[in-house]
């Protein structure tokens, strides 16, 4: 598996779309909407501020794993973009390596891709899940290649994405409302 998006340069623009594994974008929408996040998980040696393997546990039993790709957009400049993988329901993480934390149920009412865009770069840099109260759970590419930074409501995280969320556009996927 490459650590970057392959064949990203098209029509005079680097298009760094979210990479999906084990699930399509459409299936992801069907999976997460009206579902609840009940726990998150990451390697014990890492933090929510910067982790190379962040996992969300859904009430339905599925696990979504997030990381990022780091792709050249000309010269030495590289830009991160999100990568999402659906893990098998029965997959148990190595408890010596990973730490699982239960959270108050987070009901996913809708979700958006967080997009960084300029003249020659389009990057789906992160994803934002929103509950009915407007609270946001954000997973976005970190400055460190391959990693993501996570912001969870009511949980202190050292949230440091590659691009400030205020510089990203919300691209609505679908909504259950």
């Amino acid at each position, binding site marked *: 598996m490459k*650590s970057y998006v392959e064949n990203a340069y098209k029509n005079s623009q680097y298009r760094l779309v979210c990479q999906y594994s084990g699930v399509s974008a459409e299936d992801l929408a069907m999976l997460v909407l009206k579902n609840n996040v009940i726990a998150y998980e990451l390697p014990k040696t890492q933090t929510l501020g910067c982790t*190379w393997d962040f996992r969300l546990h859904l009430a339905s039993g599925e696990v979504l794993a997030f990381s990022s790709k780091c792709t050249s957009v000309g*010269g*030495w400049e*590289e830009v991160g973009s999100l990568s999402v993988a659906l893990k098998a329901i029965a997959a148990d993480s*190595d408890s010596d*390596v990973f730490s699982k934390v239960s959270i108050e149920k987070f009901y996913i009412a809708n979700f958006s891709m967080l997009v960084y865009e300029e003249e020659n770069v389009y990057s789906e840099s992160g994803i934002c899940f929103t509950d009915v109260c407007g609270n946001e759970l954000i997973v976005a590419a970190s*400055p*460190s290649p391959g990693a993501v930074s996570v912001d969870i409501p009511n949980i202190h995280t050292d949230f440091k*994405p590659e691009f400030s969320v205020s510089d990203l556009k919300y691209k609505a996927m679908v909504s259950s409302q």
Partner: protein
Amino acid sequence: MNLYAYVHNDPMTYVDPSGKTTVAAGAIGGTFVCGPICGAIGAVGAGILTAIVANEVYNESSGSSDTPALPEGLVGDQSDDRAGPNKNGTRHTSGPLTPENGGTGDYEADLETLTGGTREAGEGDSAPPGAQIGENGIFGRSENSSGGSSIDIPANGDKPHETLHYD
């Protein structure tokens, strides 16, 4: 008791590795600063001094005596036009490790210099899959998307993440 009298009450600036002579912390083995006036202060101070030198002044170890510490400043070549901060200033792009930091221009050799040795990153490691990671968290990508190789040095304090590029 004044535990730091032997370094003029400034243990961050001066050290006394011999127990007899105070020298500037950044010049061990070099500049002579003070005469033997501090020599009799005692072993307690010397023990504390050892800890200070090991943990704060030299900052050489990252868990293993063979593992270099993370650099506290940029260590890559800045002379290329492509060097500089990324679009949002959260990552710094540089050329290869500079000679004054032990750089040779060779990706493999410089990765060894910066890490003291690597292994392939696996599940739970702080690096992308397939990268070569050292115990200090520095990792190498033998193939990046521009066709070259890269060495990634994690942020350290105010220093941003730095990526060294080898074409």
